[in-house]
């Protein structure tokens, strides 16, 4: 669990926080209608781009929140875990994830939401990705070199571009707003 939300708390407290946050995340996904495979698949036909809007909204809310909380000294950004970048396996994983999303109509989070609300397709997707996780775990030693390739550590956009943190934040906000406007335009055209 990332500090400083609960800092050096015990494993029990960490797991409790994870369950509470997971339930909140699942509730938000369900309220946004993302437990339905039909809604998720709608984005690939341009009919309903709610997934992109929800995810981009969450991203800019979190990004602006982290920026300003840190700026006002309320959040120690150094204590926040940044996932490590492994370029090639993550690129491959993203393609595989996208293919799985198109085929199943659900991603892992929305599959859990679908399963929790009694949708059979969600339960099968959960079984599928759990089987995939076990399979990858068993075979991991066979492709360990690829799994560790393209390592860039905790790599952030300000480090990659050399632009100030705030400028990158502003650029992502503009990108998100442009994407929202583009999504609305596409939806109007398709309908």
């Amino acid at each position, binding site marked *: 669990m990332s500090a400083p939300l609960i800092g050096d708390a015990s494993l029990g407290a960490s797991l409790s926080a994870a369950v509470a946050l997971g339930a909140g995340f699942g509730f938000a996904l369900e309220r946004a209608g993302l437990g339905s495979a039909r809604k998720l698949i709608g984005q690939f036909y341009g009919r309903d781009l709610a997934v992109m809007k929800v995810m981009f909204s969450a991203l800019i809310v979190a990004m602006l929140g982290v*920026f300003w909380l840190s700026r006002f000294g309320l959040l120690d950004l150094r204590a926040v875990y940044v996932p490590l*970048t492994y370029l090639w396996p993550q690129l491959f994983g993203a393609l595989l994830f996208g293919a799985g999303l198109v085929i199943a109509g659900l991603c892992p989070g929305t599959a859990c939401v679908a399963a929790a609300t009694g949708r059979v397709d969600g339960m099968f997707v959960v079984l599928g990705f759990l089987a995939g996780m076990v399979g990858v775990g068993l075979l991991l030693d066979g492709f360990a070199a690829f799994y560790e390739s393209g390592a860039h550590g905790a790599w952030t956009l300000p480090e990659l571009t*050399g632009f100030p943190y705030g400028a990158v934040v*502003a650029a992502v906000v503009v990108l998100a707003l442009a994407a929202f406007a583009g999504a609305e335009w596409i939806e109007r055209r398709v309908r």
Partner: protein
Amino acid sequence: MNRHARSILALLALASGTLAAIAGTVAPPPATDEVPAAELAQWIRDRRPGLLVVDVRSAEAFDRDRLPGARLLADIDADALRSVDTVVAYADARADPAELRGMSNVPRVLRLHGGIAAWNEEVLFPVLRADASARQQRDFATRALLSRYFGGSPQLLDPGASPARGRSRRGC
């Protein structure tokens, strides 16, 4: 959500993002009575006249690790302050202004932003990623010079040598 509410949210996001671009850095800015570690390092290197650096920590902490030319608060008397026009006090993190009440005669009393931890991170041991751009490397050269001047050592971070990869999954 209706169109009006969405427009307001979009404007709020745009305003917040624009202000972020103006603010620039994500780190909290120094207060009006604080000086950044890099600026203090320049003052010390330039032997700025009338500058006195004061350690407000314990004597044990002072003996273990201190800023160049710093004096322990307990060792400073009125005579020592006669020719001083700027005092910079530091502690482990943030110096308590109450500790500096005895210096009311000094024209300018400042605190080191971030304390000795910031001095160590920003001046003595600055870090450059090995995959940094040419511009980032040029910017870092000045900091590296300052680091070496004070006996520190600039750090080169090899991203490929990151700690063993955790086998966790993150996604939507």
